[in-house]
């Protein structure tokens, strides 16, 4: 599958006309043979192959299709097609598995048939970001300069200081970029501007920073358009799909605190007329755990996905609204184990508060909330949420008697 696709790309690319084979030279950049060459009339002048790049103790990454010789040494050329392994690990990372250790080695890569006039696209070493970029580069010839952001995406790394002026200057120098390209410019994703000061990069490395579009999918039109980004390319978006794709991690982050809460709930639910009842703990505990789950689903899934459709700008309030509605049918299911109206009211309040809290947590994942706004919201709502939790627990215990 992967091979077929890359074969397709090969025939698609002008420079790799089958007559020229792999051994064309462009502006002093010699392109080396790729994997075992199948049908191409292989040349005698170069017998380089992937095996020449093997080193004891190293393994060539699955997304590297060949190497290209430059004045600064061989540079790995990456494929623009994502393989099955890439897709599987993307899925896992989106679910929070191995999320903090998903990296590519920082340094210079190539895509297509870049030469000394090709653009240098800067990105982070979070593999999700790297894959996102390369899959948008089919048919493009460019250099990719990967900064060491400890596996964090461009924007977060820029605000945490790893996608920075210093790191960019360091990578430009470490990869001898001046030997790779004749021009003196690098294309930095716009969201990297939070960590990169363009004029300082110029002062310290001689390279001019051109701010590219926010989204990798706009790179091709940006390059076609003489490196000009239109207004839409310069503005963050937060579509329903973009919100949805973030929710598994939101839920996953809640699992640990939820587990502790579940244990507490079972203990608290056991209190009753006979001091402690195991049967009560089990039956009422299950009801409270369902209320907890409803609150988490409401705050970490439903609220993010329906975000603009829920009234109010305050996330904690959005969570209250969603939770208030969503918990009603859920609690109807556990009605019998809730010990009457007081118990039901306690579970409802508990569920709504959990929803409010988890929805507020989602502010950290959006591209439009400001730290000052989040601080204001938290100062107002954390006390409210704390009081509500205490009231709901009090009423819940009381309702057992």
């Amino acid at each position, binding site marked *: 599958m992967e091979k077929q696709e890359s074969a397709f790309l090969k025939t698609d690319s002008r420079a790799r006309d089958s007559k020229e084979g792999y051994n064309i030279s462009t502006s002093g950049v010699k392109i080396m043979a790729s994997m075992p060459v199948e049908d191409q009339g292989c040349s005698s002048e170069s017998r380089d192959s992937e095996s020449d790049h093997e080193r004891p103790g190293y393994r060539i990454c699955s997304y590297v299709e060949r190497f290209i010789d430059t004045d600064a040494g061989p540079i790995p050329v990456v494929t623009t097609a994502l393989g099955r392994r890439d897709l599987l690990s993307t899925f896992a990372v989106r679910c929070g598995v191995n999320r903090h250790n998903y990296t590519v080695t920082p340094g210079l890569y190539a895509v297509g048939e870049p030469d000394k006039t090709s653009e240098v696209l800067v990105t982070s070493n979070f593999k999700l970001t790297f894959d996102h970029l390369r899959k948008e580069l089919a048919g493009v010839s460019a250099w990719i300069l990967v900064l060491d952001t400890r596996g964090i995406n461009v924007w977060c790394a820029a605000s945490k200081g790893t996608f920075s002026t210093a790191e960019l200057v360091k990578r430009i120098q470490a990869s001898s970029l001046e030997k790779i390209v004749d021009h003196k410019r690098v294309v930095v994703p716009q969201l990297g501007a939070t960590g990169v000061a363009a004029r300082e990069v110029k002062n310290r490395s001689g390279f001019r920073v051109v701010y590219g579009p926010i989204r990798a999918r706009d790179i091709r039109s940006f390059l076609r358009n003489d490196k000009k980004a239109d207004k839409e390319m310069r503005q963050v978006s937060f579509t329903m799909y973009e919100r949805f794709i973030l929710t598994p991690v939101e839920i996953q982050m809640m699992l640990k605190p939820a587990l502790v809460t579940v244990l507490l709930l079972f203990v608290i639910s056991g209190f009753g007329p006979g001091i402690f009842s195991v049967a009560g703990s089990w039956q009422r505990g299950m009801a409270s755990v369902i209320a907890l789950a409803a609150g988490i689903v409401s705050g970490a899934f439903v609220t993010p996905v329906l975000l603009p459709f829920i009234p109010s700008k305050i996330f904690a309030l959005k969570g209250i609204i969603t939770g208030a509605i969503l918990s009603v049918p859920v609690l109807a299911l556990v009605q019998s184990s809730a010990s009457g109206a007081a118990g039901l009211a306690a579970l409802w309040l508990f569920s709504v508060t959990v929803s409010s809290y988890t929805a507020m947590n989602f502010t950290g994942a959006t591209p439009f909330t400001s*730290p000052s706004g989040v601080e204001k919201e938290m100062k107002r709502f954390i006390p409210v949420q704390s009081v509500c939790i205490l009231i709901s627990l009090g009423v819940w215990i009381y309702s057992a008697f």
Partner: protein
Amino acid sequence: MDNLRYLDDVTTLVLDRESCIGCSLCTEVCPRGVFQMKDGRASVVDADACMECGACVNNCPVNAVSVTPGVG
């Protein structure tokens, strides 16, 4: 994105138009369209859209912009 707005009147963004030299880099790096060029200088046209990311501050050559969010 127009339907996704956060709290009003909270941003700590300050632009000193007097010191602006009109390079327009802030209009380029801002992902929320907060700035526009007016009479050769940057102008804040949508302060409530600001999320205090600091891209403008970092790239302003004359330090005409500042944001000072707390810890969030």
